């Protein structure tokens, strides 16, 4: 493009000749050039505007068209896509290890009223009281005839009651669906399951929330739709749990105890097969917690997990096993166990003022000698002793999957002087739950590998820390077997199951300080079968007393040990343990083929 000069020479010269101002020519040319530039800019702007408006028209047109389609079409659910299983219940079931139902949901209805829609409020109130005797007719009358527009009448009603309410024929009485939590086995495993209640409530549905036990600990998991309704499988065995609760209940009655608890744990995995605490409650109708007084008097109190008891002589095996592990003593080492023994200003005595003189380490356990155990603990020193108990888990709450677990933190002395070290060696001064004791015994019986208690079946766990050498652990179990064969636990012997265990009788501490003279917690901690330990049973009776041949007795050997024997007798066959007997198995005659006879004993 040829640019026009602002001052073309020819025109300038001509203008000069005619005497005109050449600047006017320049100005004219400049104006022409600016006009051309403006024209170009306007053209490109117009193009841009056109494209912009096109884009806007397209965008708004799309939105408008979609709105039109939405407004004009009939709404319908996307039925073709949802072919998978729909969510049936809002909370998963809980089953035992064989899949038997422990907790499930049941669809019931709730009853509410819209008093403004009622035709005959007084008659409705009267009829309702006839169906539900716990309602008050005056209260309903007031609610129905007043200004209220909405009244809850019942949270859960049965189908029969629902039909009866239907038959009243009152249009102001309405039903809403409700999913309720049902524990079909009643009292069995009540403390483990806990219970459930309604959370946020609405007419159309209500949320079911766990309030205690496993229901609370796994609340989120049970309500998670991502699990696709898969049940929560506990490690419990319903049959074993029922048998244990029955035997424990009878034992509690016979021994005149205030409470009882039993824990049966699989040693290899730490899975709890049965855990009971008596007295118990019905999780379908959970009682209210006590607001004052001792919480352990309430049936809600789980002695196995929440109870903090000084577990007495059952602790004696720990310092002895540790001393054997550290090669400080062997089972045959003779220890001076002359009673009484003086530590600082405290005297340590034997049970009933015995004096055993010199005992071997095995006999210290068999005869349950306090002084002997203290001597062994003195060989260890307080630091190593405390360290070992910590490794066994006596300083922390158990990691069991229940909402009550953190409340069962053991009461451990803050300082660890010589006297504390001595009393802890024979199980006084350190209060732990029976579950702690069961875990520690399982660790010893598991060849010294740490066991973690769990309530969940088949949960893969990494192998525990080795806290005791397998050799020392084996010797410790053999010592426990000697207790049952010839020591204080003779009444716990069960033919064929090689029970190995230790009795423990501990005076109950007074809330005001000191100890009661006539109230004890008697515990029997056992492992069976001793040759290949499979299960740990810890059984504890609260304030037992029995009248034996020698008058009233509260020792564990006379109270908890026989009950434990009865539990093992009932439960071991149910667990599929064959008795190891030297004699031949009983011969059962083969019946004739045409006359079948059931095998019975």
């Amino acid at each position, binding site marked *: 493009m040829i640019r026009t000069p602002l001052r073309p020479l020819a025109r300038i010269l001509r203008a000069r000749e005619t005497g005109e101002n050449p600047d006017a020519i320049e100005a004219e040319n400049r104006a022409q050039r600016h006009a051309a530039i403006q024209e170009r800019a306007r053209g490109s702007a117009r193009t841009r505007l056109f494209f912009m408006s096109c884009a806007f028209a397209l965008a708004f047109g799309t939105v408008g068209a979609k709105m039109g389609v939405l407004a004009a079409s009939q709404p319908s659910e996307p039925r073709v896509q949802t072919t998978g299983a729909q969510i049936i219940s809002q909370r998963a079931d809980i089953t035992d290890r064989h899949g038997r*139902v422990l907790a499930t949901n049941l669809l019931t209805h709730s009853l509410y009223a819209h008093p403004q829609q009622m035709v005959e409020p007084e008659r409705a109130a009267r009829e309702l009281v006839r169906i539900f005797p716990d309602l008050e007719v005056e209260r309903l009358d007031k609610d129905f005839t007043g200004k209220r527009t909405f009244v809850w009448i019942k949270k859960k009603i049965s189908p029969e009651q629902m039909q009866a309410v239907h038959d009243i024929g009152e249009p102001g009485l309405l039903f809403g669906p409700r999913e309720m939590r049902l524990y079909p086995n009643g009292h069995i495993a009540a403390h483990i399951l806990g219970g459930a209640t309604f959370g946020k409530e609405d007419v159309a549905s209500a949320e079911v929330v766990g309030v205690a036990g496993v229901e609370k600990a796994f609340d989120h998991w049970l309500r998670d739709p991502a699990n696709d309704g898969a049940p929560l499988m506990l490690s419990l065995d319903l049959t074993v749990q029922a048998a244990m609760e029955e035997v424990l209940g009878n034992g509690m009655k016979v021994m005149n105890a205030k409470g009882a608890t039993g824990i049966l744990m699989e040693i290899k995995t730490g899975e709890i097969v049965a855990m009971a605490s008596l007295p118990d409650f019905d999780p379908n109708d959970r009682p209210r917690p006590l607001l004052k007084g001792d919480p352990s008097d309430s049936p809600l109190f789980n002695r196995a997990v929440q109870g903090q008891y000084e577990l007495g002589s059952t602790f004696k095996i720990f310092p002895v096993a540790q001393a054997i592990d550290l090669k400080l003593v062997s089972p045959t080492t003779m220890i001076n166990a002359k009673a009484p023994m003086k530590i600082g200003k405290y005297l340590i005595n034997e049970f009933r003022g015995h004096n055993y003189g010199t005992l071997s380490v095995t006999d210290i356990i068999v005869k349950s000698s306090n002084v002997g155990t203290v001597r062994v603990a003195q060989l260890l020193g307080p630091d190593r002793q405390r360290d070992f108990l910590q490794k066994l888990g006596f300083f922390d709450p158990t990691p069991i999957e229940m909402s009550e677990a953190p409340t069962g933190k053991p009461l451990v002395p803050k300082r660890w002087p010589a006297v504390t070290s001595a009393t802890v060696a024979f199980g006084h001064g350190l209060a732990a739950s029976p579950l702690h004791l069961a875990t520690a015994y399982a660790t010893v019986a598991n060849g010294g590998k740490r066991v973690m208690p769990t309530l969940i079946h088949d949960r893969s766990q990494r192998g525990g820390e080795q806290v005791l050498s397998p050799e020392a652990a084996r010797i410790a179990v053999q010592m426990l077997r000697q207790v049952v064969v010839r020591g204080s636990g003779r009444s716990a012997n069960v033919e064929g199951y090689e029970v190995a265990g230790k009795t423990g009788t501990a005076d109950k501490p007074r809330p005001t300080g000191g100890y009661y003279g006539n109230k004890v917690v008697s515990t029997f901690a056992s492992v069976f079968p001793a040759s290949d330990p499979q299960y740990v049973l810890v059984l504890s009776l609260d304030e037992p007393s029995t009248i034996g041949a020698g008058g009233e007795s509260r020792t564990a050997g006379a109270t908890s040990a026989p009950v434990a024997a009865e539990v093992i007798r009932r439960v071991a066959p149910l667990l599929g343990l064959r008795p190891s007997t030297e004699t031949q*198995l009983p011969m059962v005659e083969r019946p004739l083929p045409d006359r079948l006879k059931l095998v019975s004993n």
Partner: protein
Amino acid sequence: MRSVLYLLTALSVMGLAFWAYRENYRTQAAISEMSDIQRQIGRLREDLGVLRAEWAYLNRPGRLRQLVDLNFERLKLVPFGSDQFVDVGQVAFPTPKAPEREPGADADMPVERPAGFPPRRPQESTP
């Protein structure tokens, strides 16, 4: 010629419209049938849940214990004890019924057990 072409086109359009109309209604019918079935499945699952709960309730250990006590005269059931473990050889297996031979089948032919049935144990054949 052209009019014939027009006529054919018009006829085919009408045919296609009829086909599309029918397909539309068949699809809708299938969809509603499916949602019906799904609702039915939901109801049945609900019933199944109720039945399972009832089964668990009827089989609760407390009730079974009561029933055993009530029927002790007839059943004589006692708790499972350690003395009830016996060798397999001493277990009284019920003798299986001899299957009826088909007429005309060879009498010496060994009787084949149905698929999935365990092989015959020696104890079963001896009285």
